[in-house]
């Protein structure tokens, strides 16, 4: 008889072991996840669709619905892509399939990955497994909530301003935004091309490292990818002797950081010192003051260009109109939700004649400053540490009508994203019963270093990733 699998606790690595030792069949393992999905997804709404018939004898996986999957509807959470069935796989989807991973389904997100709560999904919000009255974060809230609720052992997300790291923090699991250029974007629904990265979400740092090793590396179909300078190493040690951790004052004392979040991050850093790390304050003087503004000019500008392709001609629904021009303009107005429209408008404005230099051009120069100050800090430290999100998961609806309040959710994840650097969020405790994420930022292609530090801390923190109400 097959062992009873508790999907809430099973790591991908353990699942892989069970399959390899023949203690469980792939069908039994998938069955356990579909049972969990049947039980908990009606409440949490992590999945937009499940794929019971998918092939693969390895560990199952969930993919955020910005990742093109051949023959499986891919909407990016938008009405304008409803009914769109890709005729090819994204490179990351192909790579997980080649590794034998089987698809459980496509996970919910803010429309076009624009948001910090999944409330912008055209198909309704996902809910946080720790407290269903609260958001799971976003844009990849579906992937993060699915992993925490035992509805997938691991998942892929995409991160432009924090869409992997922030939901992982709010759901109490591990999320990696890899170095810009380390993972292919071929076949990904594009949002902001100088920022978008695909990355893994899992229960443990080792799971995340393992999944990263499957998807990372140059892709001839994406000219913005690079070969990794060294192979991915699964972390093992529990010492931080000799590791230099920089604690940027601005990112640890920013306005809006909740006391509970600040205290838990401080405790995690004290623990790092106990494990042998040298923990020292440092400064990223412009990252908090200008990062968010820089991002909200560059990302919408790129989005306005990327989203120009949705014209009712090649895919998606089409609005009725007697002329081509009216058809395009109406299709776009009816198909896009409020947040994409806001960003298309903002980006078009920032790129328009007369405003380009003052807004978009200036933001690109600010980006250079942020890259320089991160490089300077990472010349002195191996990793930088700060909270991932200034707050714990917030109630559904709380920021939905205030775009600027929603944008501020990513104030701590955005600076290193603009610099193209890898960032890893690991859970470091509970504040009022809700998870808090510690963000670790490394140098370009410094993922192995991040995994090592995060794994050692993870062992010492011994955070229980299973939501209290589901234990």
């Amino acid at each position, binding site marked *: 008889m097959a062992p009873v699998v508790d999907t809430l606790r099973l790591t991908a690595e353990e699942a892989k072991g069970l399959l390899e030792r023949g203690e469980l069949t792939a069908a039994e393992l998938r069955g356990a996840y579909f049972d969990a999905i049947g039980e908990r997804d009606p409440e949490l709404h992590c999945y937009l669709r499940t794929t019971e018939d998918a092939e693969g004898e390895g560990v199952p996986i969930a993919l955020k619905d910005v990742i093109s999957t051949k023959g499986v509807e891919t909407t990016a959470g938008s009405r304008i892509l409803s009914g769109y069935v890709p005729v090819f796989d994204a490179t990351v989807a192909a790579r997980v399939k080649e590794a034998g991973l089987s698809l459980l389904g496509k996970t919910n997100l803010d429309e076009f990955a624009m948001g910090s709560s999944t409330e912008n999904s055209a198909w309704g919000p996902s809910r946080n497994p720790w407290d269903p009255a609260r958001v799971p974060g976003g844009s990849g809230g579906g992937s993060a909530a699915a992993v925490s609720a035992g509805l997938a052992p691991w998942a892929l997300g995409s991160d432009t301003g924090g869409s992997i790291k922030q939901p992982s923090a709010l759901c109490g699991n591990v999320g990696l935004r890899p170095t810009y250029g380390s993972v292919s974007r071929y076949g990904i629904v594009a949002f902001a091309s100088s920022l978008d990265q695909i990355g893994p979400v899992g229960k443990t740092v080792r799971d995340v490292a393992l999944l990263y090793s499957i998807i990372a590396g140059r892709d001839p179909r994406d000219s913005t990818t690079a070969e990794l300078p060294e192979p991915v190493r699964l972390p093992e040690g529990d010492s931080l002797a000799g590791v230099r951790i920089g604690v940027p004052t601005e990112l640890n004392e920013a306005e809006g950081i909740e006391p509970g979040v600040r205290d838990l991050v401080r405790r995690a850093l004290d623990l790092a010192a106990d494990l042998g790390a040298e923990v020292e304050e440092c400064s990223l003087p412009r990252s908090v*003051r200008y990062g968010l503004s820089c991002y909200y000019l560059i990302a919408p500008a790129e989005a306005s260009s990327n989203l120009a392709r949705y014209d009712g001609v090649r*895919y998606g629904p089409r609005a009725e109109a007697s002329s081509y021009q009216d058809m395009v303009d109406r299709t776009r*107005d009816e198909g896009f939700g409020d947040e994409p429209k806001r960003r298309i*408008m903002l980006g078009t404005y920032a790129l*328009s004649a007369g405003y380009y230099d003052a807004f978009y051009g200036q933001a690109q120069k*600010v980006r250079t400053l942020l890259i320089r100050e991160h490089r300077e800090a990472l010349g002195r430290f191996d990793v930088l540490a700060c909270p991932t999100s200034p707050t714990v998961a917030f109630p559904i609806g709380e920021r939905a009508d205030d775009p600027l309040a929603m944008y501020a959710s990513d104030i701590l994840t955005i600076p290193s994203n603009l610099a193209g650097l890898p960032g890893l969020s690991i859970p470091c405790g509970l504040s009022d019963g809700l998870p808090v994420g510690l963000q670790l930022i490394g140098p370009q292609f410094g993922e192995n270093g991040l995994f090592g530090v995060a794994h050692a801390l993870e062992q010492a923190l011994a955070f229980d990733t299973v939501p209290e109400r589901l234990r």
Partner: protein
Amino acid sequence: MAISRDEVLHVARLARLALTDDEVERLTAELDKILEAVGIVAELDLADVPPTSHPLDLANVWDDDVPHDSLSVEDALANAPEVEDGLFRVPAWRQ
């Protein structure tokens, strides 16, 4: 005001969005607030700082010039709302 109603209408035309009157009104107010917030980038003197378009040090990435498979016409048209004779069909261009 950072942005006027007329400017919003102009930008909507550039962005190919047939906004409703309600949307124009709401977006004018929202964009005004957002532009005021992001406008703080103007306070930095960056005359000597080069712009960054992309955070990865890559230029001129070449691929071997060998033919490979591409989408069939059938696949390329598979998701189109309207197709005729192997082509995307659209309403007539407004004269």
